[in-house]
């Protein structure tokens, strides 16, 4: 069995002539049963961490079956256990005095600081445990797309950040319209882009500008007039974190801050010919604004989103040839009235997605490396969150509203050595026995060839040359003949030491940083 699978494993290895222009651009379904390499390709793009049992489950199934299963699993898990602090409400310390004031101020500090880090830890755990669905990877896409930082002048409370994350999770592959409508009155976003300071007397254009530039249409496809009018349409929304100042963490309308004049946005009149109530303003201003954007700029929006998703899931530096695929995906999005799931399903089941040219070409972001390792070894989840922050991806704290730059910025002269350094720290937190026991969870790990192959499969996307396989096997054997591994492996502590050496060698490889 080992021999056969290694033949599969080396498939395509010597095909070095392929050029990007030769990529299969068809979005038609790939109907062949998936081999191990293809299952791994799909799982890597869908999740942050793989296990052999999930790979085994899907080998031989069709792309259609596996993709449907990955979405069905995601749909089932959109309501995970909430962070412990979500129902912990506070009062405004300014309205209190004495000991009460101190207590509430201390609580407030937790909500603005530590709880945001706890929230990162909470998400790390979800990412780590999600190895069989599209959910967490897609939630991170939305966090990057609607980038909101908790660490601003006056930090955003963790519950607001959580609620935003929950919005992304509940709508992970839902309708883009809903996401746009809801993000416009999202508590964290209202704080982050000054929506709560956007008042009729002096409109703040911050959110309106980014709504068009970064969230929906893309730079250059709207006018400054659109931004000014858009800002007026979005006036009046507020958010509070205090229980004594309304319903905390839920957006509400302050009618006296809402601009009741008519506005002209992209040629559409926004008349305020209704009673100014929260529901009416949401329906006739916010929802209508999104509606006008999606109607008038549907082509631009679908292209913008399809392209961004393509870069996230397939390849971050698409060529002209790929643009044709993106164009077709945009059409699927538009035809489905901005429902996202049909487009993603089309993409992940397609011949294009499974083309060998798309395998192993993405650069790993910090969650790809860190969560990918964390899944297998013991490590503190909060520290893992901190490591990812040190490597440039701090959960709930992107560098700015444009999100993470991604692609090659993940691997720089700064991050490459520190990623390896931190991975070693994670590996070294596990003693020899623990590593040996982990290796033992891999089926047939008593065969040195299979164990090496399985470990490489977990961490490296494409097949490696026979010569390199030999080198890696030798990290385990240390000169012993291959049949002796079975004996060596009986002593888990001794085996663990060798497994550590192999892991150290794997995380150095340039293709370890690709997926």
């Amino acid at each position: 069995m080992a021999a056969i699978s290694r033949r599969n494993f080396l498939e395509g290895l010597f095909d070095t002539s392929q050029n990007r222009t030769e990529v299969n651009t068809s979005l038609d379904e790939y109907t062949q049963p998936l081999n191990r390499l293809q299952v791994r390709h799909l799982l890597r793009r869908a999740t942050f961490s793989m296990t052999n049992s999930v790979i085994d489950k899907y080998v031989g199934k069709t792309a259609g079956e596996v993709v449907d299963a990955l979405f069905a699993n995601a749909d089932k898990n959109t309501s995970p256990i909430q962070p412990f602090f979500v129902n912990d409400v506070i009062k405004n310390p300014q309205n209190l005095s004495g000991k009460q004031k101190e207590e509430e101020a201390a609580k407030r500090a937790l909500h603005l600081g530590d709880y945001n880090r706890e929230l990162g830890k909470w998400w790390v755990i979800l990412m780590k445990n999600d190895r069989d669905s599209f959910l967490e990877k897609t939630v991170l896409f939305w966090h990057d797309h609607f980038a909101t930082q908790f660490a601003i002048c006056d930090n955003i409370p963790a519950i607001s950040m959580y609620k935003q994350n929950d919005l992304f999770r509940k709508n992970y592959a839902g309708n883009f319209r809903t996401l746009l409508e809801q993000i416009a009155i999202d508590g964290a976003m209202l704080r982050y882009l000054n929506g709560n300071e956007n008042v009729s007397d002096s409109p703040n254009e911050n959110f309106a500008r980014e709504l068009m530039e970064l969230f929906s249409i893309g730079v250059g496809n709207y006018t400054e007039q659109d931004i000014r009018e858009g800002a007026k349409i979005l006036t009046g929304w507020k958010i509070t974190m205090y229980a004594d100042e309304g319903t905390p963490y839920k957006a509400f309308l302050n009618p006296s801050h809402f601009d009741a004049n008519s506005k002209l946005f992209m040629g559409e009149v926004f008349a305020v010919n209704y009673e100014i109530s929260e529901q009416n303003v949401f329906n006739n201003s916010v929802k209508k604004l999104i509606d006008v954007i999606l109607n008038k700029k549907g082509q631009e929006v679908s292209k913008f989103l399809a392209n961004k998703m393509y870069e996230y899931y397939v390849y971050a530096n698409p060529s002209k040839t790929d643009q044709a695929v993106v164009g077709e995906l945009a059409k699927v999005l538009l035809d489905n009235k901005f429902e996202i799931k049909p487009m993603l399903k089309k993409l992940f089941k397609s011949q294009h997605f499974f083309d060998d040219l798309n395998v192993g070409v993405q650069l790993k972001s910090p969650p790809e490396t860190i969560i990918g390792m964390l899944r297998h070894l013991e490590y503190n989840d909060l520290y893992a969150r901190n490591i990812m922050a040190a490597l440039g991806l701090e959960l709930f704290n992107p560098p700015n509203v444009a999100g993470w730059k991604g692609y090659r910025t993940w691997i720089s002269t700064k991050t490459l050595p520190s990623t390896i350094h931190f991975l070693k720290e994670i590996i070294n937190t596990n003693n020899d026995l623990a590593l040996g026991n982990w290796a033992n969870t891999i089926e047939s790990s008593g065969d040195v060839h299979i164990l090496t192959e399985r470990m490489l499969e977990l961490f490296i996307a494409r097949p490696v040359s026979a010569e390199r396989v030999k080198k890696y096997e030798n990290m385990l054997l240390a000169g012993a003949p291959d049949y002796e591994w079975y004996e060596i492996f009986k002593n888990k502590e001794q085996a663990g030491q060798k497994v550590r050496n192999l892991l150290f060698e794997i995380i150095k490889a340039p293709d370890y940083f690709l997926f």
Partner: protein
Amino acid sequence: MGVGVVANLNIGKMSVSAFEPSNYAVQNDNILVIIQQFGGNDGINTITPYEWDLYYNLYRPKLNIPQSAVTPISKDKGMAMHPNLKLGPRNGMLGLFESGKLAIMHGLGYDNPNYSHFRSTDIWLSGLVPNTDSEPLRSGWLGRYFDKTKPSEKTESPFCLQVGQNPSLMFLGETGEKSIVLEDAEQLYNQAKSVESDKISIGGSAYFLDEFNYVNQIGVEVNEYSKVIKKAFDAGKNIEKYSDRPLSNQLKLVARLINGGLKSKVYFVEHTGYDTHSNQGGLDGAHSRLLAELSEAISAFQSDIESLGHSKNVIGLTTSEFGRRPYENGSMGTDHGTSNVMFAFGDEVKGEIFGSHFAFLPFRDFQNLWFDTDFRSIYYEIMVSWFGQSPEYAESVLGKKFAYISSKGFIKTTVEDKTLPPPPEVPKTSADINSPDNPLNPKNITEQDTFVLYPNPVPGNSAFLNMRLYVQADLTIIQSYVSGQVLGEIHRKSYQPGVHNVYLDLLGGPGLYLLKIKVGKRNHYIKCLKI
């Protein structure tokens, strides 16, 4: 590298191949230190127009730096320095100016400015001003500069060194990164030991190879350069005392590496926090604190470099991605603007003021200033005068040549070049509604406000009134029959001067009506046909 990256860079009409290393990128031992004031520095409160009433009364009624606090640096030009710019060794940046080592360069910007933070940052870092907003900017000016290096002149040291976290677009060339990013030399050295340091050949598709080689190359460079950097760090020292702030610490490391013999041409440090949309504050505010840190860091660095004996070969430059608007906003801050002031420092810069205060430039629209020096003039001069390149070399990096600032340039060795194109033209009239030259200024207005109703005839009840108001006024619109009989008031609101589109919901059925528009004390009439 692979197909996608090899593509020629098309700057304007000129095609620059990244693979024609026709010149040497390293002509001399001169070093440039760049301090990026990230977020858009408010130049008006950095160098204040201290004798200008409008600064205190009109533009910055809340956020001005009081006249009594500033130090005048040019009575003639009406310029003074923010008081915090005298913090640091030997009187800070003020001391540098007084000893002729600080160039204060006014009016830098570019045409058709982009107000997006990210886009404008990319424009400054790339040194390219594209015709359209959507054209991607994929390389930086120094990245392209070092793209042209011949393989034979590759030194042991990285071309550029960035102290901080994130690689800047400035150093990204068509053929890859031209810089090393580090925070701590020892740490880099220790961590680099476990990076794959061999160049590996591997099979696979073109794009996989492209990315594989990219990562592999980073590893090779880290390994190689970390040793060189560690060596320089161990051999180097600091003499001057620096304050314990991030910017000071970064520059301290730069001085030590230079002293230790690192041959990098460009060092880059980042000072963050300048995006002061709100709570910019006055003398005790956030912006003032940033200037204190800036002055302390720059003056300590310059003093250190002098004491260490490198000041003939090191100049520094501050850059920021845009200026801020003259008018303060309603949230105690200032918004993204256009034109700005930039500093250069060192023994080899001309310790003068270039240009008049940029705040005196006319407005290009209601909010933003014109510029009178293209920011790329500075890049161009650095390449020609400081790095000793031919004008053609500099032109190939930027796509064209640029006039030196005030035609003489800010570097001592710069020779005036009459063949350079002229500086940007600045229109005479200001679009600032309060400017005395602006024909739209209410004080200059002899003409009346204008009103156009559209569509007219009006189908149904909805119409728009397009109006240009020259003074702030309370506006009332009353609809009546042509006979004069009033139907009712249809609009009432106070308006600022400027162009407005007012939505009107008209009364009555089809027919001819009069709209009486009362603006302050004046009345205007428009006929309107409803169909």
